[in-house]
């Protein structure tokens, strides 16, 4: 017990805390860029699949399903280790961002497609009968209703995005989890305190997000 207690305070020297917080910055950076990217691409893919454009929608849907059903870790490794084979060299940070964006876009596309499908067909028909074009109906009638239903699942997907950034340890991105490993590799007494610190930091990030989700839920219900 004494050893653990000693370790808890020793582990958090000024340097180590700085180092971990720097990792938190990278985690947040990867997350924010991937969130923006995957929201844009995800909406795009979701709408393409929903619109049932001949040929295009079908193939996009198949590719989407294939990527969605692969482990993210595999996609990260693929982007980082395989793309150089065909001459695309990416720094670790951008390899992670691209892998996360590709994977999360497909997950978000599925949520967005589902949300659009949940709107009754009568809405589209009604919009058509008052003279709206398909695009106008989608933009002005369907999307505003669908977005309300989509926001809670989208936010829980974003929570898993933040958690999944930890997988970039596999390609040695110096984010929070990796820096934690560096710290406890120097002194094994630091293992437990570092794990607790990592858990707390991820928890704060994600619980904050889930509070936002809950707040949205209440507002939408009201």
């Amino acid at each position, binding site marked *: 017990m004494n050893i653990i207690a000693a370790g808890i305070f020793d582990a958090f020297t000024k340097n180590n805390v700085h180092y971990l917080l720097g990792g938190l910055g990278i985690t947040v950076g990867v997350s924010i860029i991937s969130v923006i990217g995957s929201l844009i691409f995800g909406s795009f893919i979701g709408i393409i699949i929903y619109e049932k454009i001949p040929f295009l929608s079908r193939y996009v849907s198949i590719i989407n399903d294939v990527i969605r059903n*692969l482990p*993210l870790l595999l996609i990260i*490794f693929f982007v980082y280790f395989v793309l150089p084979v065909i001459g695309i060299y990416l720094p670790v940070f951008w390899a992670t961002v691209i892998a996360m964006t590709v994977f999360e876009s497909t997950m978000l596309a599925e949520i967005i497609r589902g949300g659009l499908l949940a709107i009754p067909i009568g809405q589209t028909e009604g919009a058509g009968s008052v003279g709206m074009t398909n695009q106008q109906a989608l933009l002005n009638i369907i999307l505003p209703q669908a977005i309300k239903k989509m926001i809670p699942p989208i936010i829980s997907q974003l929570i898993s995005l933040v958690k999944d950034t930890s997988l970039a340890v596999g390609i040695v991105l110096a984010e929070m989890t990796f820096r934690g490993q560096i710290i406890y590799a120097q002194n094994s007494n630091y293992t437990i305190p570092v794990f607790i610190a990592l858990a707390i930091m991820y928890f704060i990030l994600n619980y904050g997000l889930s509070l936002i989700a809950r707040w949205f839920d209440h507002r939408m219900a009201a």
Partner: protein
Amino acid sequence: MISLLTSNFHSFLVAFGYTLLSSIIALIASTVLGTLFAILQIVPSKTANVIARAYIEVFRNIPLLIIVMFFYLVVTKIVKIGGFTAGTIGLTLYTSAFIAETVRAGINSVGIGQTEGARANGLSSWQTLRIIILPQAFKIAIPSLGNQFINLVKNSSILAFVAGGDLMYTANNVAATTFDSFNSYIIVGIFYLIITLPLNYYMKFLETKLKGMA
């Protein structure tokens, strides 16, 4: 790609078995654990509710990697466990938090009239839950439980970090020994899709079928 597959077929097959084994054990264990915590959330006891809530929030908001590494590095000092066991325990705890939420949503969507009817017929509250509510709740929850299983199979790739001998771990090994990372990752991807893609389409089918019934 074919030559790489044939020359390493045995190791890929064993790895496929480990991935499947880990996923199935974790699915069964986390369904039991998840149901337990779902029930703890709805029983009329403040303490039980708080404990269940805390458990779910903690495991839902911490990366799986941290949980698995914790078991692999810390718990193994007290109880000797290997990478596969540590990974499977981590997967179980992580997934059980999600399944608890799924089952709770299922329980909530069973009408209150069912409980009232069962109690009026003289069933105890435990009997009501076990005989009347849970079977209906599980029926509603099946599509999302299936999606959890797909996630579980994908998440089991985390075993690669703790030398769990799963598909991802083998892919890394084969890529490192043959320098053919392209093909080894593609092959392993196909192995994952063999499990997840049919399940994915079956779950979609079930969802539309349930929607049609409602």
